């Protein structure tokens, strides 16, 4: 497990750097997941680095006619709100990186620590999957061995609960498929596509 953890940490620290080709186009290959956004749904879409004029919507047929009765929405930035919501919901699971100036993707990096088996919690029940009880017990005994090693080293003689006593406790892992479905649902029309890489 520790090997896995360090491997994942290593992979994060090696995240890709800007290519030799451009200063302002960021490489996206190395992120774990990309949430692609619909530029049209973003009021700041036209600020994007990759934005081209061909996508411009005509504002009005006649310059002097009022555009429409739609109200002016000051500071309305759905992408920023979406990212805020994502951080609130899945902040412990992943990092969400974005470009508030008309960026077309939200890049997601999973946090390695969140993918270790953890105890079942009702609050996160919808986005986790239980491990089989056999595997749970195995993890517990591994943890016990570690804890005993640590306790012995520290000269701590307190008796620990054995794996058997905790055998009924259920361990869970994040359910990525469910998380992706939830993100798609949260983003609704803002999200064009979600790519796991």
């Amino acid at each position, binding site marked *: 497990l520790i090997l896995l953890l360090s491997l994942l940490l290593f992979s994060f*620290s090696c995240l890709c750097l*800007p290519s030799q*080709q451009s*200063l302002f186009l960021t490489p996206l290959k190395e992120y774990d997941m990309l949430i692609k956004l619909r530029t049209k749904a973003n009021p700041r879409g036209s600020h994007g680095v990759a934005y081209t004029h061909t996508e411009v*919507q005509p504002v009005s047929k006649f310059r002097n006619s009022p555009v*429409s009765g739609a*109200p002016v929405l000051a500071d309305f930035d759905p992408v920023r709100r979406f990212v805020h919501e994502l951080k609130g919901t899945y902040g412990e699971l992943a990092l969400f*990186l974005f470009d508030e*100036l008309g960026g077309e993707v939200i890049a997601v990096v999973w946090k390695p620590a969140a993918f270790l088996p953890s105890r079942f919690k009702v609050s996160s029940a919808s986005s986790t999957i239980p491990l089989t009880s056999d595997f749970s017990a195995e993890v517990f005994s591994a943890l016990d061995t570690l804890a005993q090693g640590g306790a012995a080293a520290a000269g701590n003689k307190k008796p620990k609960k054995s794996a058997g006593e905790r055998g009924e406790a259920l361990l869970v892992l994040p359910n990525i498929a469910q998380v992706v479905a939830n993100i798609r649902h949260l983003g609704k029309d803002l999200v064009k596509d979600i790519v796991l890489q």
Partner: protein
Amino acid sequence: VQAVSPTLRYTEVFIPQAVEGSTAAQVRWVPLLDVVVQFESSGHWPDDLEAARHTKTAFYLRMADELQSHLSLDSVVTEDWLEVRSGGFTFRVVIHHERDLLLLQKTQDQKAVQLFERDFVHRPKLAASVHTLATQNSSFSTTVRLAKRWVHAHLFSALVSEEALELLVAHVFLSPRPYDPPTSPFVGFLRFLELLSHFDWAGQPLIVNLDHELTPQTQTEITHLFNTAKPESRPALYLATPADPRSVHWTGDSPTQLTLNRLVRFAQTSLKAALEGIEAPDTFNFKVTSTRPLLLLPTLISPSVLS
């Protein structure tokens, strides 16, 4: 009346366009231009924070009425600010009353006091200093905008504050040694990348001599504060100014060490790419020629118009 929005000190990446309405197909982006209205101290203000807040709301309502009847400006009142629309732009007006700070200090809520000072003391002061800098150096504004565009383009939005980036660029202009201050925005931008790449962030504080207020005493004090703070408890990006020797206001919570490391590595690669690009311009796509008027000079909105 103090202007605090980046737009009003020439450091917003995209110059706001006047927006009168939105089409059904596309909601237009309408930034809020922040303005702080400072009220004279008066004994008539209530002694309770909640009551003071409601008093301000009452003032917003009154201001909205006055603006409507005297200048026929539309505004929207919320509990904590007033949105005024004028000529297609929207200003967010917030009232600042000094007494609130005393009331806050009594509550012993350190974080709230710090936020209050940041929003009503330090931000307007920084805005004024940066505004001065932008009027003194013709390439400052565009350099800041390039730097911000670069930082956002590499997905660092919400991780590095606008003010921190402005301070970094300010440092490039204020302490350019061994060079002269940059005379073109692109050179300024390269120096910004160079500063990010090569500065020893873990080993020393970056002291920005804003308004040339720095004295040898403050300099020693800042260095002392930096050296006595535990490396893990001080900000990773330590940007000290004479007004903010502990670097708490603009980089206190973010970026983290991990984010800073990534930022530095991006800067190093971009700098290298840019320098190589200058030597072989045919094969290089700077992507500076954005389709939006990134490089046009900003429309001049002087704070004096607001006061």
